[in-house]
Each structure stands twice: as C-alpha cells, then as structure tokens.
C-alpha cells in the first residue's frame, strides 16, 4: 500500500509541523485485552449500588418493563450500525420504522405530525420555544414552574443564546399551574409561547382550561404541552384536546433503558401550520421511479446541511435508535398492553399514596395524578430520604432541591414494576423515620 502511495513509511503520511509534535506521554487509560476490559468494567459497574435498592425515583426517567424482544430486534447490526438514511434505496426499513414512530407520536398526542426525534424532553421544550419564537417574532417566553426543573433550566440555557427572556407562572395550592396568573401574564407582556407540563413535575394532571385557551388565542401565543412521562398519553386526554399546538415530550418510558440519564429520546409533534418550523429529520412517504411506495428523508430545506446559518435548528444527529426502540416497544405492547400498563401505574401510585398517608405523611396536593405523588413528611425531605437510603430504599426526590417552599416534600413514583412489598417496606420505614423524629 505504501508503494502504491509512493511513500516509504506511514510516518510520512502524518507529518505535522514540529510545534505540534507531542512533547509528553499521553495520560490515557491503559490498553487491555478484551477479557480484561470486560472484567474491569464489570467491576466498576458493581459500584452502582443504586440498581439494587428499592426505588421510587421518577422525575422524568421511569423504570418500566421492557420485553427482551425489543433489544433482540433493535440491536440487529443492520439497524444499529446504519448511518442517517441519506441513501433511501438501501434504508427503506429504517425509514419505514421512523415513519411508524412519527405516526405513533402523532396518534398519541393527537397532533397532525411529529419529527423523527430530538435529543430528549428538555431539548424538545427548548426547540419548541424556538418554533414559537420564529412563528411569532416575539422575544419572550412563558413557562409554568410546574414544568420539570431540568427542562426549564435547559430552556433558559437555549433562550440565553437567543437573548429571549423566560418568565415563570407560579403554582397553585392544588399542585397545578396557577391559570389565573397565566392569563394575567399573557395580558401584561407579548409572549411567543407558553408551556405547561401534564402530568406536571409533581405528577398532577395540569392542562389549559377554557379561559386560558381563550387568553392564549386572543394574544396570539403558541400553546405548548410538555410530556415527560409519555406513558400517560395512553390514559389521559391527548394534548391536542386541551389546546396544545406543539407537544414537546420524552419517550424514555417506551422501552429505553434508564442508563443513568441517556441516551433518551425527545419528540416534537405539532399541527400542519408549523410543519416548516419543526426541527430535525422528517421521513415522508413518496414513490420510486417505478411508482412503488417508498420512504425518504424530506423537507430537508429546513435543515442545517442545506440552509446553514439560516437553518431553524442546528440539529443533525438525533436519537433515531432510541426512537426505533420506542416504536418496537409500542408495537409489542399494543393498544391493549399500553392501556393496561398505564392503568397499573395509576393503580400502584394510588396504593403508594394511601400507604404513605397511612404512615403519617401528608399529601399536600388535591389534583388528580398519574404515576407520581408528592408527600409532605413534616421535616426536611433530604433527611428522611437519607434515613430511608440507609435501609436500602430510594424513597424519591427531595423537592427542596428545586423548590425551597417544598423542602419537606418528596416526589415518589410507582410503575407497573413497583410491588406491594416495596410499598409496604417504604411505608413502614417512613413511619419509623417520622415517629423517631416526633419523639425527639
């Protein structure tokens, strides 16, 4: 090969100016044979005790059952090692799967169309806000404080770049967005869009009511629904039915591993009106040169590789493989299974709520909830969670981390995988923890 190239050694191919030559040895992990890599990383993995605890953690990442058929299919090399399907003729299978994903998300949200995915729920919200900014030409955005705190933080990061101000709507006593405050905010400033999350960060159903919808339409604001627990879409009224024009969501619940936070899969669904503002890849159905039905990446004139600095988003690589996993999950569980799983989540979270209430915790919110519930434990939740952790229980999230006014509250999730025994263990330990404190 060197002869063909006409050089004597490979070094000639990599010549760099003297100033760029490495001056010191690189400090990189050592090279190991494969069996030792396996042994080493298996050892490191064992230091993740969190997987063996009884867990009520949720907050935008949920432990659900994933049938093994998902990985058997999704991990096939044809899917796993493909690039973005630019060459449609040899990518029909993947393109069809993404077309199916776009359909599933459209049907679940009640929207006209959905994109091929974005990075995750938080960036879905940020990109939706950009859609609203582009649609209205306004530089101010409104978001409920009951939207996931991480999502709001990412929204702020993105909006900082665009010099867009972000205002927040307060939370009402029942644990949902204060819709009167929303209406008032809309009349005092010109907003591009307003975002609500349902179920919200506290697990509560939280939608625009008729008055909010009127105010939104009167002021020409783009209403956005955030969905951090996509399973809820199987049970609750679709965001389209309560007035959303854009739905920004996270579909990790559909078979995507928790994996310490990623990769997950965000989606954006919207109405026809915004079709040319939606970011990311879109798969469309068309025909080939013989008139046969075929799939292809489409409306690419929106995208960075064509439009460069005039593109509406810079997204290139998205989360195709996670979207494929979610599509296969939805195909496997079907309508019947998805309904059952959603119903079991509701049932188990009611059982959990009853158990912690019986253990002496107060349930501060009265709004209906999906699979997460907030409990007030009467003293800093961080302390109670620490005590539970010593007994092998991850009781939930300390709300004080994001909401100082709820420092005594914890957010707990129950899914179809949560057992009565786990709930009993939590409740009895919680009771003990609360009583021990009361005596002091």
């Amino acid at each position, binding site marked *: 090969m060197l002869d063909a190239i*006409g050089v004597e050694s490979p070094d000639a191919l990599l010549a*760099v*100016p003297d100033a*760029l030559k490495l001056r010191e040895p690189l400090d*990189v*992990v050592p090279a190991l044979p494969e069996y030792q890599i396996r042994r080493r*990383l298996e050892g*490191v*993995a064992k230091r*993740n005790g969190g997987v063996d605890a009884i867990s009520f*953690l949720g*907050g935008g*990442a949920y432990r659900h059952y994933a049938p093994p058929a998902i990985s058997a*299919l999704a991990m096939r*090399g*044809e*899917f*796993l090692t493909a690039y973005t399907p630019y*060459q449609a*003729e040899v990518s*029909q*299978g*993947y393109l*069809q799967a993404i077309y199916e994903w776009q359909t599933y998300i*459209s049907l*679940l949200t009640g929207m006209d169309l959905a994109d091929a995915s974005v*990075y995750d729920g938080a*960036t879905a919200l940020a990109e939706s806000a950009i859609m609203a900014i582009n649609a209205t030409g306004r530089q101010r955005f409104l978001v409920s404080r009951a939207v996931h705190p*991480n999502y709001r933080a*990412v929204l702020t990061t993105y909006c900082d770049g665009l010099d867009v101000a972000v205002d927040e709507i307060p939370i009402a006593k029942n644990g949902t967005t204060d819709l009167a405050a929303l209406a008032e905010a809309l009349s005092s400033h010109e907003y591009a869009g307003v975002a609500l999350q349902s179920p919200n960060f506290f697990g509560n*159903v939280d939608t625009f009511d008729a008055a909010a919808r009127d105010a939104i339409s009167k002021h020409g604001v783009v209403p956005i629904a955030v969905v951090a627990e996509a399973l809820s879409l199987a*049970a*609750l009224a679709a965001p389209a039915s309560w007035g959303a024009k854009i739905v920004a969501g996270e579909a990790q619940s559909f078979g995507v*591993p*928790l*994996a310490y*936070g*990623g990769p997950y899969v965000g989606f954006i669904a919207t109405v026809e009106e915004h*079709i040319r503002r939606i970011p990311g890849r879109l*798969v469309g159905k*068309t025909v080939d040169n*013989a008139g046969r039905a075929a799939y*292809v990446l489409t409306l690419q004139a929106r995208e960075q*590789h064509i439009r*460069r600095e005039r593109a509406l988003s810079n997204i290139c*690589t*998205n*989360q195709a493989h996670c979207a*494929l996993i979610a599509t*296969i999950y939805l*195909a496997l569980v079907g*309508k*019947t*299974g998805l*309904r*059952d799983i959603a119903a079991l989540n*509701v049932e188990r979270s009611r059982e959990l709520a009853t158990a912690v209430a019986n253990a002496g915790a107060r349930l501060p919110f009265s709004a*209906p909830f999906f699979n997460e519930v907030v409990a007030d434990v009467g003293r800093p939740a961080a302390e109670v969670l620490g005590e539970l952790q010593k007994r092998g229980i*991850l009781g939930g*999230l300390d709300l004080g981390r994001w909401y100082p006014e709820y420092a005594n509250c914890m957010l707990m999730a129950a899914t179809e995988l949560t057992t009565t025994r786990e709930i009993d263990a939590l409740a009895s330990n919680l009771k003990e923890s609360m009583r021990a404190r009361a005596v002091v």
Partner: protein
Amino acid sequence: MPAQSSDRTLSPLIFEMGQDGRANAYVERGKPLESFFPKDALRDDLPLPDNTELDVVRHYTRLSQRTFGIDMGFYPLGSCTMKYNPKINDALAGLREFAELHPFVPDELAQGALQVMYELERSLSSLFGMEAFSLNPAAGAQAELAALLVSKKYFRDRGETRRNKVIVPDTAHGTNPASAAMCGYSVISLRSDARGRVDPAEIRRVVGADTAVCMMTNPNTLGLFEERIHEIADAVHEAGGLMYYDGANANALMGNARPGDMGFDLMHLNTHKTFTIPHGGGGAGHGPLGVAKHLVEYLPVPYVVRDGDWFRLDFDRPKSIGPVRSFWSNFAHAVRALAYLYANGAEGLARVSQYAVLNANYLRVKVAEFLETPYAEICRHEFVASAQPLKKETGVRALDIAKALLDRGFMAPTVYFPLIVPECLMIEPTETESKETLDEFVEALREIVAAAKSNPQELFEAPVTTVVGRVDETRAARQPDLRWRPKPA
C-alpha cells in the same frame, strides 16, 4: 452482489397489521381508568394496533433486512467515520448495573457510573490537549451550540459584548453556521485558497474587535491538514477571539497531534464517529465538549469531579452556561467510548489514526486512476474526488455513481459536500477496512466509470437491485406525507 434481498413487495405498516385484543401478556390487566379520573381527564380512544410478538418480530426483522449498516458492507461515508463498532462495547453498556441505573440515584450509589465518566473525561482531556471535557452534549451539533454559549458568556463577563461574528471556512460542516445562528452570532464565511486551506492572511483580513469565534476542523473536510493552523490561531487570539475545533475529523490525528497544542480553546468530539459508538441510523450521538483552562468554569452542568476516592456530580458552578439536556450525559455511550479507549490505549489510538490515513491515501491514489481528485497530495483520513469531468463527458453525475455503488453492495460516499468541489464524492474508508475490501471498492468504482462511458443509461437507472428504485424526493417535499392515518370509520 446485491446489497439487499431483491424482495420488492412493500412491507405493510405496523398499523395495517394485527387485530384488536391480540395482546401479549407482558403485564396483568389493569383496572378501568374511569375509577381513578374524572371522565374529561381521560382520552376516549387509543387508535393503536395490537399485534402478536411473533408478528412484531417478523415485521422489524424484515425492516432490518431493508437497511444497510456497517455490519453488512463497506461504508465510505466521508466525514462520518463509519468504522467497525466492536460488540464488546454494547455488551458493557448493557450491563444491568449501567443500563438500569436511574439518573437521580445519589452519587454514593452511582460511583461506578461516575468513575466511567471521570476516566473518560480525563483521558479525552489528555488525548486532545484540553483542560477539561463536559460529557453532557448529546451530539456534535449540541456541543457546538454549548461551546458558542460558553464563548458568549465568557465575552459577556469580560464586557466584550460587541463580539458577535463567527468565522467559518466554506468547507465547514453545516452545523457550524447553524449553531452560530442559534447563539445570535452572525457568520462570516471564509473562502478556502487554491490548495483547499484557510489562508492566514484571509483570517487577518476579517478578524477584529467583533470577532467572537473562529470554527475550524483540522484536517478539514477535504481531508487536508491545515499546516498553518498556528498562524490562524495567533491571528484570532490577537484580535481577542476564540478558536473552536470541530472534532468530526479527529480520527485523523488522535494520539499524533492535539487540538490544544494547535491553539484551539474549545472543541467537540463525535464519539459516535471516532470512538466506535454505533451511529444507530441517526443517533443517539455523544458530543463531549473540551475547553482550555480559561473556559472551564463556563462548561455546562453537571461536571464530574473527584474528591479523593469519591466521585460526584458538581452542579454548583456559578459561571456555567447551565445544563443543555434533561440529564447528565448519553451515559451508555460514555461506557462504549471508555471501552474503546481501554482496547487501544494512547499508542493504539495513534496507530488507529495512522491506519485510517494509510487507507485513505491508498484509496486516493487508486481512485485517481479514473476519477479526478482535485487536491492531489497526501491526504489525512478522507479525500474528495470530483465527477465534474466525467459529467461533462458522459452526463453521469456524482449522484449516479453513488446509486450505482448501492447496486454493487457498497454504501455510497458522501456526495455534494464540501460545497466548494463540484460533483463531489467525499470518501473516508477508516482504519478498520482491509486492503481486500478497499480493492473491491476501487474495482466497483472503476467499473462504474467505465460504464459511464459505454452505457451511461444503466447508471441513470441505478439502483436496480435494491427494494425500491430511485425515490422521488421532489414529490415527498411538495406533498408531505409524514404519517399513516386511520381510515375514517
């Protein structure tokens, strides 16, 4: 050698299959939702299909067979670094203790995950000459955005709010200018010189008090090394701007030279290119963002730190641009990238780059026997050929060559990019391909060029062995059909 099965019957959509109630027993039956919610809070129908597991398995197996991955054949997609993805990486990422770990697990119960992130972060920092890396960004484009947000905050803190221009060479990836626009920066596009490089004199002409960042990749997308990178960096730095390294082409230099030593202040890596993470048909990616010392405090949160034997996620970084995603990282990919680092070590990675460059140059001289290669010199990991003379002679375009390669069992190269080369074919073989595979590819390409001269019609009609022929993209864009719709009852 047809690329795929020649079965040309359309696969039904999953929505057109199955029967209501054909449920798989993954969970028990749930109680009616009406017992828990007021009726108006519930949806009235859920128009999704019910299919048996067998039918679903057959459906997606069939779809997989209509998809071309690296595991099936040569994938010379320029700038995408489609190298072999070792299976051990997936096995390790799939370990229960990694795959089932919730992101809100307290640090003390996630020490293994944090150690993975820490080891990867430290290794990348040394390998590329950066002070620190953030593993947060979900892909290269998001890392670019995060980097430009870092620059914006950095300049704001220094009271230099007039810096609003980003300089991008005309050979740059489209994400560079698009990311700049998302930060409110305007873009100065820089013309490459006759040798396909950025001329430092040209940089000196455009830099000034309004320069924020100059975004470059080295080697550039023509596969050429920018030897005068120091002069370019000096010019940008003297004007008070920052240098950004687009790491999409890092496979050409890792272990041999470091962006940090070239004067870059910020950079990203596409570990789904360079570090063998499977691309998954368009993600998930993983785009670590590296910075020099003066920018560390601006990195996105959280950042993994080590206190003695303990690792923790640090959120308390007041100057940070904030988080850029829901959770901490595409962690499963961090596991894969670390496994790849362990498989190679520093010396192995240097050898990876050497073989990638060797393979690219071998292909370059072979392809030059029958196609124009506009920059006839030693290239790095990739090179460009142009079908412009062939098009003039025969009417056959780069696109026709690409489609004819599909018929011969190869993925097509990147075409029509970079934009400065007419009828461009951008070819990147990577280090993991054997000489035999490269030779087969060369012969296929030689045969196509010969066919262009003897029977161009054959190429205009390609591909003919794939499940569909050339697709009508215009119709797709004019009459967007982006989803299946249920038939009205």
